[in-house]
């Protein structure tokens, strides 16, 4: 079978088997979710990233497009120790491969994870090559090329047109959704509670949103560095206080920036389905689904903001609330997919307060 390498910009190189797709570069991150490879690969927040799955055996249960979190695969590469490739079922491997996403397997993924944990998130490339030198050469140009990409990753994945959907509760609120790379399940959860939802591109102006006159505004998840998402922050600044706002993940960070706070890059991020959070709004401790590389700096939050959610693994901010200005947000994923469902009550918390 073909030889392949993961080459990190910082110089490390890992050899495995190249199982399909074509050589590509991206930010290299690891995810500790045991299941949900399809949901992860179709989550726009993984735009520009090569995913190392810590669970060693992937593709075990095949594919099913009904679980997709968007209309396409967003990841730049998929690395796992084994990927199912039997006569009976090789569908996940085939699907990635047909989409041109490189797959690297048959290597000690734990070694890579320990490197990412200790050394932080690097750029890297999965390269189809026979020898190391060749792999390094190809990786260098792939990474250089990738880095030229526009920094506003949110814009890259966001819808370019407004989309309006009927909700399932005629008596429910109308909700505007700022699409920073929304997972489909945020839309599903809101539609289930709303009479109508409108999904706006990330660079939509506050005026356009106000013209639609929603009862509440959702700021979605999305990829990349929040500091590079300039337009959205301005829009949100104008919307704060006008209508209740609920932010998730990138939405949490953009809300914080709009309130004048700062964000910082975590060493290796939080990506997995097992992160414990203390939720001061719902008054409970539960396990959450997380996927982010940046966090809100608590010290820079305005005085009227209160940290309501804490990541219990490292004490970082997992959410905050500005009660007077009627906005709150969480850094993790109450819409799960993949991951546990306890936090889904936050959608109720939000929508119940809109009417």
């Amino acid at each position: 079978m073909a030889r392949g390498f993961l080459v990190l910009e910082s110089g490390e190189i890992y050899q495995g088997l190249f199982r399909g797709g074509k050589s590509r570069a991206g930010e290299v991150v690891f995810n500790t979710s045991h299941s949900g490879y399809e949901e992860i690969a179709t989550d726009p927040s993984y735009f520009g990233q090569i995913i190392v799955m810590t669970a060693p055996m992937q593709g075990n249960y095949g594919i099913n497009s009904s679980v997709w979190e968007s209309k396409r695969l967003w990841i730049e590469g998929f690395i796992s120790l084994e990927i199912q490739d039997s006569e009976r079922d090789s569908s996940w491997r085939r699907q990635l491969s047909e989409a041109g996403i490189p797959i690297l397997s048959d290597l000690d993924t734990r070694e890579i994870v320990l490197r990412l944990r200790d050394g932080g998130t690097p750029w890297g490339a999965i390269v189809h090559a026979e020898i190391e030198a060749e792999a390094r050469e190809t990786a260098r140009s792939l990474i250089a090329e990738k880095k030229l990409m526009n920094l506003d990753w949110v814009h890259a994945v966001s819808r370019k047109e407004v989309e309006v959907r009927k909700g399932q509760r005629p008596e429910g609120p109308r909700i505007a959704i700022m699409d920073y790379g929304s997972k489909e399940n945020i839309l599903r959860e809101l539609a289930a509670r709303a009479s109508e939802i409108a999904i706006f591109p990330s660079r939509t102006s506050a005026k356009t949103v106000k013209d639609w006159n929603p009862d509440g505004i959702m700021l979605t998840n999305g990829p990349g560095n929040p500091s590079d998402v300039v337009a959205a922050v301005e829009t949100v600044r104008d919307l704060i206080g006008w209508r209740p706002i609920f932010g998730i993940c990138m939405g949490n960070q953009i809300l914080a920036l709009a309130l004048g706070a700062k964000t910082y890059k975590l060493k290796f991020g939080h990506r997995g389905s097992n992160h414990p959070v203390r939720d001061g709004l719902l008054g409970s401790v539960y396990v959450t689904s997380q996927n982010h590389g940046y966090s809100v700096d608590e010290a820079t939050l305005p005085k009227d903001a209160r940290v309501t959610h804490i990541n219990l693994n490292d004490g970082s901010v997992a959410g905050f609330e500005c009660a007077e200005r009627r906005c709150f947000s969480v850094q993790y994923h109450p819409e799960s997919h993949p991951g546990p469902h306890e936090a889904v009550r936050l959608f109720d918390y939000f929508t119940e307060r809109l009417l």
Partner: protein
Amino acid sequence: MPRMSDVRKVLILGSGPIVIGQACEFDYSGTQACKALMSEGLEVILVNSNPATIMTDPEISTRVYIEPLTVPFVEKIIERERPDAVIPTLGGQTALNLALQLADQGVLKRYGVRLLGADPEVIRAAEDREIFRKILDKVGARYPKSEMVRNYQQAMDVAKTLGYPLILRPNYTLGGGGGGVAYTPDEYELMITRALRESPTSEVQVEESILGYKEFELEVMRDQSGAFVIICSIENFDPCGVHTGDSITVAPQQTLTDREYQAMRDEARKIIEEVGLATGGANIQFACHPVTGERVVIEMNPRVSRSSALASKATGFPIAKIAALLAVGYQLDEIRNDITKTTPSCYEPALDYVVTKIPRFAFEKFPGSQDILTTQMKSVGEVMGIGRTFKESFMKAVSSLENRVEGLAPVTFSEKKLSMPNSQRLFHLAQAFREGWTVSQVYAVTQISPWFLEQVQQVVSHEADVIEAKELSKDFLLKTKRLGFSDATIARLRGEKVSDIRSRRHEMGLRPGYSQVDTCAGEFKSETPYFYSSYWAKPKPAAAVSKPRVAVLGSGPNRIGQGIEFDYSCVRGVKRFQLEGRHVAMINSNPETVSTDYDTSDELYFEPLTEESVIEILDRIRPEGFVAQLGGQTPINLASKLVAHGHKLMGSSLQSIDMAEDRAQFSKICNELNLKIPAIKIPANGMAGSFEEAAAIAARIKYPIICRPSYVLGGRRMEVVENEDELQSYFERHGDYISIEEPCLMDQFLEGALEVDVDLVRGVDWSVIGGIVEHIEAAGVHSGDSMGVLPPQRLKASTCELIEEISRQLANRIGTIGHLNLQLAVQNDQVFILEANPRSSRSVPFVSKATLIPMIDLGVLASLGKKASEVQPNKYQWDKIDTVSVKGVVFPFKKFPESDSILGPEMKSTGESMGRGADYAEALLKASIASHINVPPSGEVLLSLRDRDKETMLSLARSLVGMGYRLSATSGTARFLFNEGIDCVPVKKVHEGRPNCVDRIRSGQVALVINTSSGRRAVEASFDIRRSCIDFSIPCITESHAAEALLTSLKKHRSREFTVLAQEKMI
């Protein structure tokens, strides 16, 4: 919320003797919980009747009571100790049932004691199937259609509506006891009768079959704030229909999508909340239709369990410890993760490896029993293999089984053995692929998930490549090792020597790496040295440590003859080595044990106990020495290979081990000793490679003769033969295990002799006798199966002295350093030496607890070369104790409905209990009760005695009548009793027509049976008597000395006088 301030003293209920379905996993849980609560500053009182446990060591809790787990005894303990609370969730089903009884009988209320962890309502909600079903309805969970059956007629009606096959689940039984799968009306009729009887409430849930569904288990925890986490998901390799304890299981689950898994997780949370489990751990079993994915709930246990022990070992999350802390008021987010030391416990472990558990069975020990697996658990032990992939972990688990042939040994393929679940199915599965079956063909007959089948197929198909490879290139060998092939398997496939494969591999630099079990898939740094090997990981040198390293080899899977006693030895040994300034590495493959708790040793290697894996570990950590005398026969058998590889054996040298184990050498030593002390002998003996040779030897040493193959564990294939016909039959049945190279060992059988066990420790210039255990049954019953008493009750003091003298001299002659166990028989003041074991023995924990002599600690000191001046051996005087201790025995005959319960030289018991009392009678009574013998205070005693026992049992019969028991007897015995003027009801033997003695037993008229017989034919003729006793839980004594002992305890029982005794600290 911090700890409850009003709980300062807690009583923890243990699980009692090891039985099938409830084994040393509860020693693991209980020990962990005790340690956690002790470190919280609580007073911890422990009650458990099983001496072979670490939890009953005095260091583990504030005070230990080795007493029966029944209401009268526990009430006395509560009365004396006045605990604030009882924790019933750590001692398995035994503790839960006992807690319910304590509540129902008002004991808890009377003494103002609360239950922590689970209250009676919760226990009932989970255990009572009707209540549980209402809860499932409420949360919208589905379950198989079923009816609660309370009598035979209703049972027949229910069968008509549900259709066959049917699953029977008696209420409130342990390990699915009395349950099973009925495929036909005939089977159903038999099974429902038994099941109704087994359930203490005479209730059996009869269920539509979900055979072929995929089975899953979730290990969950919840705290009082409602925080809920899944510690581990487990997927069964075997589909529904096989008890989960008998299934191969895999963690984490492998074939569920995230949506399916999360839906299951949500349902688990709702069930836990509805059941009302406020804090602690529980497991919930689910089944999923393989095609539609439809999910049904099978059952839930609101306590720690065998699965939670497995889950703890699989993930590094100490469920029992956390459960104990939650029970006293903490919340999950307040308890630190032990492994990472930085993150809290309210998370869900992420695994970057796969764990496979394979059960170990003992059908061969129970002739006549059918090797078929159903919903009633039958396995006696288990192994766990950890690897980066399923294939690697599965193959490591197979190696860990310690089968005669390592790995997936070829078998003569049988389709029946493939389609019907049985202990050998795994091997037939591999064979099917070897013989060209496809995954879909195998799936059609097994319903094992195709995903698992493919994995096995991938392994098996690589066998051909290994066989055909011209030479083993480095890349090819690495690939092969990554698939989990052991050197032994590669050597077997290629017809080469294991040592050659190993040296080639080493020359290529191919060594396994050791990865950490860290609960978080590498996300956080963790210092806890809990390791598994993998050929996916790069080999790195072991971290340097400041102290000298010692490696302790464990005992592998529990099996009959090698069980928890050896784990006790290992754990206590580890602790002592640590006290002596050593950095101890523990190696073991058994997930149920205390030794495989990462908290026990300084470094834990969860690895197969095979030559290859132990050599790799020792090469990596380069210990000062390895210890082989604590883990039973498994490490003893490995010792010479490890020494040959250049590692140092601590304690007795290979030469001295050989002197004890090699019969020729040992006989020679004994004969030398005989010249010095004429009262010492060895039984007349010989070795025969064929029946003809055996017959000639028999003529010389005279019948009865005890026969056994050369290599035995737990008396496997050991029998007493009474005449030449039986000798011939012996060779016909066991000829496969006898050859010129491995001859049959034949010994003069010492009829009626008194057997004793001696455990001693010898250092360079000292020795300590731990104690002499006198067997209650006469010679002929395996030492593991006979009850024992310490100090001896019948031996003369002079004989005891002689035995001590002989033991010391033998140990000196052999050059023992550390443990030596001797089995002796005394007949007419002659002492016969039967056997020597150059290691810690099954009886060591019992002896240590009876005499308070820390035998294991002394063994460690001996191994470290400590002198008499340092050890002060004279302070250890085993005969200076003022209490009597009796070892009771527990048998699994109930689980093997076709097998005979008569005791003989082949060991059949799974566990032991201990009764300590002021005198023999009290100790005996406690040991009997603790071994679940229902000592009847009145009623009818049925006697059926062989001729030679009739005279000796006469006084016993008279005593029984004097105590008010009614007697009945089979024809011969009845005639004899009449002639002696004793009144009894004559009863027909089975072959004499009906109604006969078995009918009488089955109709419930008999309270106790004493049945002795000898000779194959008589034994077979009386089989039904013993079987019916087992089925009806009526005590059945099959040996005359045991009968006398029982009489002693009956008298005590009627006096109703007994006390409870706290264990004292060891000397």
